[in-house]
C-alpha cells in the first residue's frame, strides 16, 4: 500500500472514477492544461483528453450551472471551485437548483454532481484564499457535504461522492494537501457518506471535529496522554451533512465532556449543530459544559503572518482547550 499525500489521494480518486465510468468528467478553472492551481488535476487531461477535462472561463456560476445541467442529463461531473472563497457566485445554482431538483420534480430528475472546493487558511492566502465555506451550505436539505481529514478518507469519500445520485459538496483542506501523508490503497474502495469515524479511543474527554484541526487534536492527544495521562476520545465527523447523529451521541456519552473543534468561525458553524444534538440527546450524561474551539468571529483571514497565526488553530491552542476540559 503506497504512502501518498492527501492531494494525490484526491487525484487518484478522480482518475479511477474517470477510468471506471465514461460519464465522469472534470471541469473548472485551470484544471486542464495547467492541471489545477494545486496540481490536483495534473495529468488528467493528458490521460482523458480535453473533452473530459474542461478548462472553463472564470465564472463559478457557469461552472456550477454547466455541471448541474450535465448531471441532470445523466453525466457525472466533478466541478472544481479553485478556492471555496470563489464559490459564492455559484451558491444560487447549488442551493436553489442542485439541492432542490429531486424534490421539485417529485423524483423525476436528480443531480449527481460533485463540487470540489478547497477550504481553510494557514497558507498565507489572506482574505480570498482562506475561507471555510461549509457553514454557508450547511443546513441546506438536499445537499450532502463531506470534509475529509485523512488521505484515505479523501479518496474513499470522493469516490463515494462521484457515485452518489445526489449533489455532494467535497470540501478538501488545502493545508492538508501536502501535510497529510499516509498509506492509501490503490484499489477500488469507498468510504460511505454519512458515517463518522473514531480516530482514537479514550475515557477522559471527547473531541469532535473535522478536517485540518484534527491533525492538531491528534498531536495534542498524544502529548496529553504521555505528559499528563489524559485519555482523549476523538471523533472525525467526515460528513457534515447529513451528520452522523448516532456516532456523535455515542462519542459524547463515552466521557460526558465534549470539545468541538473546527476552523470555520464559531457562530453558526457546524459545531453549533453538533452541540445542539448533544444537548438534545445527552443532557443526563453530560459532565461538563459542551465546549467549542473555533476560528474567531472576525470577517476574514488577515494577510499578516502574526495575525494569521492568531487566527488559525494550532496544536497548542487545541491542547490547552483539551486540558482545561479534562481538568473541569
Amino acid at each position: 500500500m503506497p504512502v501518498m499525500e492527501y492531494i494525490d489521494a484526491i487525484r487518484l480518486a478522480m482518475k479511477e472514477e474517470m477510468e471506471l465510468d465514461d460519464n465522469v468528467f472534470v471541469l473548472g478553472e485551470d484544471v486542464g492544461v495547467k492541471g489545477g492551481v494545486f496540481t490536483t488535476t495534473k495529468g488528467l487531461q493528458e490521460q482523458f483528453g480535453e473533452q473530459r477535462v474542461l478548462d472553463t472561463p472564470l465564472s463559478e456560476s457557469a461552472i456550477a450551472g454547466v455541471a448541474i445541467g450535465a448531471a441532470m442529463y445523466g453525466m457525472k461531473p466533478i466541478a472544481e471551485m479553485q478556492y471555496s472563497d470563489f464559490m459564492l457566485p455559484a451558491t444560487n445554482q447549488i442551493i436553489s437548483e442542485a439541492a432542490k431538483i429531486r424534490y421539485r420534480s417529485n423524483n423525476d430528475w436528480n443531480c449527481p454532481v460533485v463540487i470540489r472546493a478547497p477550504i481553510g487558511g494557514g497558507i498565507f492566502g489572506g482574505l480570498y484564499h482562506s475561507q471555510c465555506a461549509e457553514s454557508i451550505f450547511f443546513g441546506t436539505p438536499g445537499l450532502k457535504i463531506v470534509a475529509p481529514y485523512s488521505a484515505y478518507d479523501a479518496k474513499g469519500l470522493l469516490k463515494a461522492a462521484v457515485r452518489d445520485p445526489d449533489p455532494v459538496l467535497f470540501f478538501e483542506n488545502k493545508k492538508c494537501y501536502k501535510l497529510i501523508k499516509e498509506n492509501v490503497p490503490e484499489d477500488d474502495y469507498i468510504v460511505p457518506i454519512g458515517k463518522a469515524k473514531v480516530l482514537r479511543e479514550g475515557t477522559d474527554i471527547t473531541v469532535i471535529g473535522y478536517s485540518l484541526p484534527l491533525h492538531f487534536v491528534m498531536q495534542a492527544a498524544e502529548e496529553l496522554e504521555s505528559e499528563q495521562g489524559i485519555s482523549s476520545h476523538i471523533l472525525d465527523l467526515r460528513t457534515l451533512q447529513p451528520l452522523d447523529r448516532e456516532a456523535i451521541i455515542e462519542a459524547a456519552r463515552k466521557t460526558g465532556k465534549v470539545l468541538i473543534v473546527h476552523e470555520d468561525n464559531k457562530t453558526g458553524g457546524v459545531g453549533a449543530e453538533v452541540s445542539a444534538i448533544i444537548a438534545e440527546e445527552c443532557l443526563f450524561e453530560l459532565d461538563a459544559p459542551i465546549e467549542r474551539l473555533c476560528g474567531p468571529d472576525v470577517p476574514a483571514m488577515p494577510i499578516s503572518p502574526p495575525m494569521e497565526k492568531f487566527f488559525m488553530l494550532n496544536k497548542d491552542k487545541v491542547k490547552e482547550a483539551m486540558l482545561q476540559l479534562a481538568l473541569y
Partner: protein
Amino acid sequence: MPSNKTLQDVVMPQLAESLVSATIGKWLKKPGDAVEQYEPICEVITDKVNAEIPSTLDGVMGELLAEEGQEIEVGAVICRIETASGNASSASGADSGQSAASGQTAESGGRSASVSAASIATTASGDQAQRSRYSPAVQTLAQQHGLDLRAIIGSGLGGRITRKDVLNYLENNKGSAAPQTRPAVPAPANAPFQAVSNELNAISEPVRNSGLHLSETPKIPTIEVEGGDRSEYFIDVTPIRNTIATRMRQSVSEIPHGWMMIEVDVTNLVQLRNKLKDEFRQREGVNLTYLAFLLKAVVGAIKDYPIMNSVWAVDKIIVKRDINISLAVGTEDSVMTPVIKKADQKNIAGLAREIEDLATKVRAGKLKLDDMQGGTFTVNNTGSFGSILTQPIINYPQAAILTFESIVKRPVVINDMIAVRSMANLCLSLDHRILDGVICGRFMQRVKDNMESYSLDTQVY
C-alpha cells in the same frame, strides 16, 4: 569579537500556498561568506516552484543546518547568519505567536497530576467552591448506584466531583456500593473489574431522551421500481439500456434510412476457411471466423468508395480518412459497438484477433471508453443468431451499417445449370442524405466481388 556578534536563525519560508516543505537544491553561500539582506543564499525545489531564498538580514553566513537534497519543513531553521548584535530583531519570526494559547498552562499545571491519579485525596485541601455542584452525569450515576455524593472526593475544578471520580469511587468501593442481590464472586481479584464493566454498560444505554426532534436524518429518496400485478411486472431501465434507447431513437428520428440487400456466393470462402481454421486455431489461439473475411472485404470496398465512411454535418459532409469499423456485439440484454481502429491497416489474421478480443471484452464487461470511440462504419454479424434478412438501424452519426446474414446452402443457377452453393445475404442501411442507390449499389457490388474472389490460395497474413 564574540561578545558583540549574534547568530540569527533563517527559516524555510512559505514559498507557495499549500506547501509544507521544500527541498534544498544548492547552497549559494558557504560559512564565512558575507551576506547582504535580500541576497540569495540557497536554491530550493518544490512541487510547485523552484526558487532562491533571499537572506533576511546583513551579516556573515554562520552555519548551514540543512544539506543539499534534504527536505525541510516550512518554518524549520535552515542556517544561521552571524550579525552584529544590533539588528537582532530582523530574523524571521518563526516562533512568535505560539505563546498566545499557552498563557494558562502554567497556572493549571499544578492540578494536572490529580487527573491521572487514581487516588484523589490531594485536592481536598484546595478550593472547594464547586464541591456541591453536580453535573447531570454525576447525578445520573449517583441515582443508579444509590450513592451518597458527600462521601466522594472531587478532583475537578473547585473540588467538583467528576463523572470519572464517581466511576473510580464505584470501582474502589465495589463491595458496599453494588446492589445486594449480586451473588458472591469466587475470585475477589476479578470482582471490581467485572462490576465496573457492568456499570459502564449500563450507562452507555440511553437513560432518557428529552426534546422533540427527528430520530434520524430524513433520507434523500432513491428511485425504486416496484409494483406491477398478476398480469404484468416492471423492469428497471439500466443505464446501458437507456443509452441504447436514446441512440436508437436519435438515429431513427434524425437519419432518413434507406435500405438494400444483395446476395453473395461464399462457397469458395467456406472451403478456404475449412482448410485454414484448425491450423489457425492452433497457431493463433483464436477462431478464424467468416466475419474477419467479411471485414476485409468491406474495408477494401470502403477504400474504393470513401463516401461510405462519412458523417452528415448539415452544411457539409465530413469524410473520415481512417477506417474504424464498429462491430456490433450482442449479449443477452444489450448490444455494444466496440471499434476496430484503422481496420484498413490490418490483415485477415489481425482482424480475427481483434474480433475475438473485443467480443471477449464485451462479454466480460471490460470494455474501456477507448474501445468504444471513433467508429466510422458499422458491421453487424446478424447471421450469428440465425437471421437471413435484417433492416439495421444506423449507428449514429455514421453514414451506413452493413449486416452479414446466415450462410445457407441453396440451389443456384450457374451457366444455366443448377448447383448447390453456400449463399449469404448482405443488407445495408444508409443515410439517404449522404448516400443514394447508385453509389451504394456499387459499394455493395464491390463487397460482393471481394467476398467471391476469396479462393483456396488466399493468404490470411
